[in-house]
């Protein structure tokens, strides 16, 4: 199958069951809301090394936020609900509460919740105040610019992590251009994040290593420099650069749609192949087939 001149390999992305949450950050200005969101989603590229994966879902206009201020929607994923709760407490506590004028709300209605504001309130040292409005409990924590407002509980739902596309290009310039076009299009899909820098990862990994202490190591099959050195190279002769886009989503449909949009946007001159990473289908709960995704099945 081809999109324009780019071959879409008949394979699948192997994705994993994760737990996801949505955090709505608001502030007096767009800049401060974004500053908090960027801080909160820093060092959150891979659950292996960062304990969670997080990213900015989208900016929110004032009329879409609970307090009618500028907002940013952040998605955060971890391997289980407990992990999501711990990371939310750490990151909202250190990155959002610290940022001037911000407030932080749950953006996901779910039967499963984790305690966040209920933990952070102790920072108020007894001066914190609880408010219940419309069956939602908020905590007002006194801080030096006034108060930090944070919701007591955040919803958590089953989610999908590790959807991915591999873009195989003739050179770095063409591959980077295609990756940028793809991530720009993919960001428009609701319910997903691309957790790596600007949505793109160049250091794709495989499971395990020759070094026993490492759980993951470089994806040598897709390193162009190793084409002549490894037996399992997947890099065709005309390909000299590979970039990966990793997708986490609140459900598998969102991840599929994101991959579909990404493939169409990335299929540009200079991109020889679009493929996906998997582990033979034995590890991940979700197999997202590229051809089926393009056909809308």
């Amino acid at each position, binding site marked *: 199958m081809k999109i324009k001149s780019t071959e879409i390999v008949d394979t699948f992305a192997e994705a994993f069951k994760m737990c996801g949450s949505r955090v709505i950050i608001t502030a007096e200005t767009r800049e401060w809301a974004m500053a908090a969101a960027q801080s909160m989603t820093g060092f959150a590229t891979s659950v292996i090394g960062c304990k969670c994966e997080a990213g900015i879902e989208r900016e929110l206009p004032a009329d879409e936020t609970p307090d009618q201020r500028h907002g940013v929607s952040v998605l955060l994923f971890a391997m289980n609900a407990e992990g999501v709760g711990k990371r939310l407490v750490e990151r909202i506590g250190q990155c959002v509460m610290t940022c001037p004028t911000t407030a932080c709300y749950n953006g996901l209605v779910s039967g499963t919740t984790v305690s966040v504001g209920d933990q952070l309130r102790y920072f108020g040292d007894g001066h914190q105040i609880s408010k219940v409005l*419309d069956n939602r409990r908020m905590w007002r924590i006194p801080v030096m610019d006034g108060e930090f407002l944070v919701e007591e509980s955040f919803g958590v739902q089953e989610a999908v992590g590790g959807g991915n596309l591999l873009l195989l290009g003739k050179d770095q310039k063409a591959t980077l251009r295609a990756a940028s076009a793809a991530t720009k299009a993919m960001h428009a899909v609701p319910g997903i994040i691309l957790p790596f820098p600007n949505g793109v990862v160049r250091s794709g990994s495989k499971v395990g290593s020759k070094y026993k202490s490492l759980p993951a190591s470089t994806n040598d099959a897709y390193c162009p420099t190793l084409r002549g050195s490894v037996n399992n190279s997947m890099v065709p002769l005309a390909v000299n650069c590979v970039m990966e886009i990793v997708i986490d989503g609140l459900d598998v449909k969102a991840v599929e749609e994101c991959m579909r949009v990404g493939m169409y946007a990335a299929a540009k001159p200079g991109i020889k192949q679009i493929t996906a990473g998997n582990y033979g289908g034995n590890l991940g709960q979700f197999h997202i087939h590229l051809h089926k995704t393009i056909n809308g099945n």
Partner: protein
Amino acid sequence: MSLTLSLHTSPEVPVEADVISPDRLNNLNESALSALPVFHGNVQAKIGDFFKVQGQYNGEIRVEGDLSKVKHIGAGMTSGRLIVNGDVGAHLGAGMQGGKIIVDGNVADWAASEMTGGRIIIKGNAGHMLGSSIRGSATGITGGEIIVHGNARNEAGQAMRNGLIVIGGNSEDLTGVNMLSGTIIVLGKMGIRTGAGMKRGTILSMHDADLLSTFTYACTYHPTYLRLYLTYIKKLGFQIDDAKLSGNYERWAGDSIELNRGEILLYRN
């Protein structure tokens, strides 16, 4: 068709009609409904002696007429919808646990006393002791919402422990007296001795107020959480302009004769 009770005979003395509640009128036909007992003063009477009963309960009850001498309507109700067209007597929705009461008129004293849940909307004025505790009891409302589009008289929200009271007009003296927690929003002016003896909780007014000397000025700031409340009540039909939504409020802490953990917020600019 919803169940409609139309007053055909005005009582000479107050009628205690706590049977007019979705919990009590559910699954009854018109004749059974008409036979339900009420107290007319100290004399037992029947609903049918005062009301013409039409239809059957389908989740909604309509009560019509000058009900200013009919007390305890909707008391203790747990669900459903009760619409009152006309002025209504004391103890409306007392001890209410859930559901919704809408009054297109004025309500007398003790409305929503010791309410625990649900919502009461009063399009006219409310009497004394709105959402308060009954005498001898330590705690007023512990949940729910009381929305008054007009004015409220003395001791609105007395001893309230939780919930929301919104007064679109003015409130008279002792608003939030002995308050334990919760939120009272007065869009108009408040009388004297606001928040006397309050332990925790919030009383907000859009106007200046003559506060007790046991309240201490803290700062003038923009409380983010107020945006949630003001946006919320705006959706309920109150006019809240952007200046108030994003404005600054004086924070007064008190009452220092108690825990000193309560607050009175006064809109500044």
